[in-house]
């Protein structure tokens, strides 16, 4: 079975991001990148599905700059077989639909039967690309999956919702978005890193569709107001309860 894991590089949390001079993007200066948290789960799950089926091919696919090779090589070191970068130097401002269209074209070209993606990318927090991709492909889609089993032609997925745990059956091909707990990403071992060097990493030039939604301005979140000490010791309990009930309205 051909499996595609869709991944995105996001800034690491090491550097506090600042707004660029244009007022609508993040200043890329000094930013370091890593794979988005949920995408790591998608890659791990893809590799586990392949291992369980005893064969197949896992392709990691991203829309991004050439530099994404570092993050993709990491996926190859952790067991994926092939990497594909759909080169888009304007990747940071690309909207969800345009991204999903580019991914859909490549997923079709790969002849994949199963697509795994993170439930959300930790930079933009849209949680939209996975479902859009499924819609464009006309495939089954289960989001926020915490348990997955795949057999020939079909699968079972569990997802957590406000109502409890839902269990779905679906026919392949399908797009699954991965929630925390689905799989525990493995460490890249040094032998895996060496093996990754020999695995194919393709760069494909694309002509992305125009954005339908674009960022017009970016503002930092308002500074948190200073804290207030209500009192000390047990004497302060009554005042604290009063403040929580009537000011903060949390109890």
């Amino acid at each position, binding site marked *: 079975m051909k499996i595609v894991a869709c991944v995105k590089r996001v800034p690491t949390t*090491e550097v506090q991001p600042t707004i660029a001079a244009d007022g609508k993007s993040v200043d890329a200066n000094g930013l370091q990148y890593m794979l988005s948290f949920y995408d790591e789960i998608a890659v791990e799950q893809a590799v586990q599905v392949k291992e369980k089926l005893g064969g197949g091919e896992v392709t990691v696919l991203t829309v991004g700059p050439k530099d994404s090779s*570092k993050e993709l090589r990491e996926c190859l070191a952790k067991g994926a077989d092939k990497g594909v970068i759909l080169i888009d130097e304007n990747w940071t401002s690309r909207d969800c639909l345009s991204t999903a269209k580019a991914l859909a074209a490549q997923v079709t070209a790969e002849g994949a039967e199963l697509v795994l993606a993170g439930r959300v990318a930790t930079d933009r927090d849209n949680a939209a690309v996975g479902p859009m991709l499924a819609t464009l492909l006309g495939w089954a889609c289960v989001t926020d999956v915490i348990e997955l089993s795949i057999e020939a032609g079909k699968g079972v997925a569990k997802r957590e919702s406000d109502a409890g745990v839902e269990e779905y059956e679906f026919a392949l091909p399908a797009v699954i978005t991965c929630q925390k707990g689905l799989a525990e990403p493995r460490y*890249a*071992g*040094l*032998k895996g*890193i*060496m093996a990754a060097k020999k695995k194919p990493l393709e760069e494909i030039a694309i002509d992305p569709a125009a954005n339908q939604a674009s960022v017009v301005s970016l503002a930092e979140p308002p500074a948190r107001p200073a804290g207030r000490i209500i009192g000390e010791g047990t004497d302060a309990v009554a005042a604290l309860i009063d403040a929580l009930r009537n000011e903060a309205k949390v109890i």
Partner: protein
Amino acid sequence: MAEYRHLDYMLLDEKFSEEELMVRDAVRTWTSERFIPLIMDHFEAGTFPTELTPELAELGVFGPTIPEEYGGAGLNSVSYGLICQELERGDSGLRSFVSVQGSLVMYPIYAFGSEEQKREWLPQLASGKAIGCFGLTEPDAGSNPGGMLTNAKRDGGDWILNGRKMWITNGTISDVAIVWAQTEDGIRGFCIPTNLPGFSAPEQKHKWSLRASITSELVLEDVRVPDSMRMPETTSLRNPLMCLTQARYGIAWGAIGAANSVFDEVLGYTKERIVFDKPLAGYQIPQAKLAEMATQITMGQMLALQLGRLKDEGKMTPAMVNMAKRNNVHVALNIARTGRDMLGANGISLEYQTGRHMCNLESVYTYEGTHDIHTLAIGNELTGIPAFR
């Protein structure tokens, strides 16, 4: 604990290949997630977390530069340096464990051993199924290993080994020992299983440095070994010294990891610690110390990187390693001592990394050639006049 950030003042990260950075980051992540949470208790108890051995093997840090056919990963020397740097960012005891296994046990077997010895031991050592130790130092022969008393005498086709080794890392927990001994024809190395009759390895206790590392005596009383356990390509003291060159190379990188751990902790602490209404980092004396630390770390990084590139090009000489080990351990120790002070009382608490690094680096300053011995080795290189004898 805050996420670890290494200092990269001169953008040296640009000088590493993608693969080298991946190796570094893999070991860094493992150290942060799996090792750092355990180290305080192990240090306090005076134990090494042997439960992590299978994970270290899985990660691939045992003899990573050994070719794949013998169980290694076939990495270059810069990658090996980065591995040491990241492990020693965790603890010098962890780096010591890995240095001994790779540079002092797997390397001599690979470089001087018979094909049979390589096939028997290298895959087991790479996979962590066997642990090794390196016995050179003796009670009366440290800086002058040529003065060793341990000896091997021919007895028919066998050898009979007698003697005592001291300060041997991993000794008590080893399955195989590389033992250096005098013979009629000069110094030879033996690769022996530690369960032979007459061999014992009592642990040396009560250390206040490198506590999360096992240190042992090796006692050899009429240990009979077949000639097949002699490493055939060993001919003189040059051989153990070649092993030490490998290990010292790793230490030159490792010390920078320890220094960076201290710097990261102290920088974060002084920025947050408020004294007399402003952060400690806002005063000139702490800033002078931070500036000095950052400069020394950066120079140490450049020294290690150039040394690594030369090693990969086959141009590294032992005299270059003398300089890098001497300098980098020295600056790391000074940084740890200064950092310890800057943390105030917290500096003596094992809840912080700095005090532990400071204690550890005292051992690193002494082992693998003391600071002064490296000074004299550089002096010898420059003048051609040996001053150490």
